[in-house]
């Protein structure tokens, strides 16, 4: 999607969003509730029109999808929308039939889809009698039953427990490994770990788009090392080591060092501290949580926007004075 915008009256839900998903990968669309994730997915599936920009899915405009393209995509909506009075396998069968799969072929596909989401035991239970987590998995089975090439999965883990969340992501990654392309939305920032690429969005705007590792680097400007010493240390002890970008001290015996290249900097840090008679007890690469990453990126973007606004204000001021 390229510079896509969607407005509801005066409210802009998605603003100038550009994304590209590599085939056979998982793109995680991550952002807080109300950030425009579902609107984006609905535009990508053709269930919602856009007010600006271009979208191509499987080479086609979603609002003009051919039957062939629609047969190759799947959409798992955010809310449970299956039929409560049908059993799990009847629900999956119904969706399979929507894709024109006949009754004989359908049987094995239903069985397989239920196996993937571990609902074989519950196949004869009415959907209304399934737990919330099982209903989410049933939705996923329905999305998988026709073996789509592209899946749009809207908040598959919303309201689920950590165990189920892990299990759902295992299934999504397995689908990716099978060659399918997935766009998954989630409001759990930590789930970025499971994605090949992550698009962070806030207030309908793209904050960052990259691999999880690159996003971390983006926030801290490099790799982060956490140094734990035997006795009190001072940041100045590391003066003169090339490649160090920033040093912070969360505790008297701890330093957090941001460096351009952790591999080359690590032995130099150990050596520098040894010269100050400080024994290093531990030195490891620090993995910031994605909550930190997300917060950092959003703050960076806001700061940048503030600077841009100030610059624009400053540029206008002389013009006004001249006028």
């Amino acid at each position, binding site marked *: 999607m390229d510079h896509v915008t969607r407005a509801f009256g005066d409210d802009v839900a998605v603003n100038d969003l550009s994304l590209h998903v590599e085939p056979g990968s998982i793109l995680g669309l991550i952002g807080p509730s109300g950030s425009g994730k579902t609107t984006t997915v609905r535009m990508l599936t053709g269930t919602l029109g856009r007010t600006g920009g271009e979208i191509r899915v499987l080479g086609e405009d979603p609002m003009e999808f051919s039957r062939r393209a629609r047969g190759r995509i799947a959409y798992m909506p955010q809310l449970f929308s299956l039929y409560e009075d*049908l059993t799990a396998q*009847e629900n999956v069968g119904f969706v399979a039939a929507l894709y024109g799969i006949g009754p004989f072929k359908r049987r094995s596909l239903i069985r397989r889809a239920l196996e993937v989401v571990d609902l074989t035991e519950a196949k004869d239970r009415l959907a209304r009698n399934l737990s919330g987590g099982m209903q989410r998995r049933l939705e996923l089975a329905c999305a998988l039953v026709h073996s789509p090439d592209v899946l749009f999965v809207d908040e598959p883990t919303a309201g689920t427990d950590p165990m189920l969340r892990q299990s759902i992501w295992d299934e999504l990654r397995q689908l990716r490994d099978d060659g399918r392309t997935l766009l998954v939305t989630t409001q759990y920032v930590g789930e970025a770990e499971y994605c090949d690429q992550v698009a962070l969005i806030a207030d309908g705007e793209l904050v960052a788009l990259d691999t999880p590792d690159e996003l971390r680097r983006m926030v801290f400007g490099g790799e982060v090392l956490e140094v734990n010493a035997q006795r009190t240390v001072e940041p100045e002890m590391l003066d003169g080591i090339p490649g160090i970008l920033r040093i912070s001290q969360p505790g008297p015996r701890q330093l957090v060092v941001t460096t351009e290249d952790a591999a080359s900097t690590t032995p130099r840090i150990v050596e520098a501290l040894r010269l100050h008679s400080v024994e290093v007890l531990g030195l490891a690469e620090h993995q910031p949580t994605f909550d930190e990453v997300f917060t950092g990126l959003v703050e960076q973007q806001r700061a940048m926007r503030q600077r841009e606004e100030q610059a624009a204000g400053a540029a206008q001021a002389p013009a006004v004075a001249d006028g």
Partner: protein
Amino acid sequence: MAERRRTGGVRPSLGQTFVRMASFTGKELREVVRRPGVLASLILGPFLIMFLFGIGYTGVRAPFITEIVIPEGVALPREAEYYADLAPGRLDVREITADREGAEQRLRSREIDLLIVAPENATSELRAGRQTTIRVAWNQVDPVYDQLAGLATTILVSSLNAEIVEQAAEEGISFAAGEIGSAVTNVPPEVIARPTTAETENVSLSPPLVLSFFGPAVFALVIQHLAVTLTALSMVRERLSGQMDRFRVAPVSSMELLVGKYMAYAVLSLVVAAVVGALLVLVLNVPLLGGPLIFAGIVLLLTFASLGVGLLISLVADSERQAVQLSMLMLLASVFFSGFVLPVTDFAGWTQYISYALPVTHGIATLQDTMLGGEVSQPWMLLALLGIGVVLYVGSLLRLRRILRTAD
């Protein structure tokens, strides 16, 4: 910007189209079957209504409670039975009195239905060759009773006039016989007063029984109401539950969706119609002179047209509540305008267009014709049912296509 979508591209195979339509049919039928209470009320409800109606409604209107005021000195009979016999079955003469004020008060307080006041000078006026007036008053807000009271009055006055003519003729003949001789007595006075009598015969193939007449009408109304209510809710639920998004993404056309739903509800309605129809004929003994084939054909057409009404409601309504309200409005309109209670011909010309726009109007007329008369006397009504069904199907299809194409 892009707000529309095509459903085209690659033409689906006929088999896939059938699979998709059958998926909707199967799903709808399963949902109904999973609710046995709904199924029971679908089949037993209509029959129970007809059964209670059949055993409870006598079709006989109670006679008017009547009081007759005959002033003192007037030479008119004072036996209640005499006046009751003048309009048989219509008057229940409770009292003959000379107290007009009291009788008027009892009429105002609705202790009596009808008040008849005989003229004070009837005999002298007659002899003078002038008409006299009988005052008949009633206190009714029910327009049907108002009309019936008028009819009873007409019959009463007509009978009374005949009685007077008969008496006068008798007096005249006696006088003439004394003057001229016995030759004038050849024509009896009652023949002079009532020169003709009616020999009546109802040539209808079915006896005019209340249950037989209203049975097909209730049946038609029930079939329409079932089809409308069942379908009115179906599409609203799909929309509110978010299923429409799934249908938009899947390679399903509006035609496949609509035909699938039609098939499901047609099967349901026809099963209900078969069961209720069988109970109607076999248990309530309503005749089926036209045979089961034409009966089934009419039910099929009525169902087709009624499903169209329901689907259109479900595509227009924004909520389940609104769908139910619109279905009830449809029922109300059907009760008033379909000929169920009042004949369609009683309505003003332009109002009859409303009547004929309702599937049940044609359903009632053709079912009564075929069940009680053996054939459909107005075959255009069958075409009208087909026409209503086709128009509503096309309307629903266009509306559904718009819903599926246009984003929120």
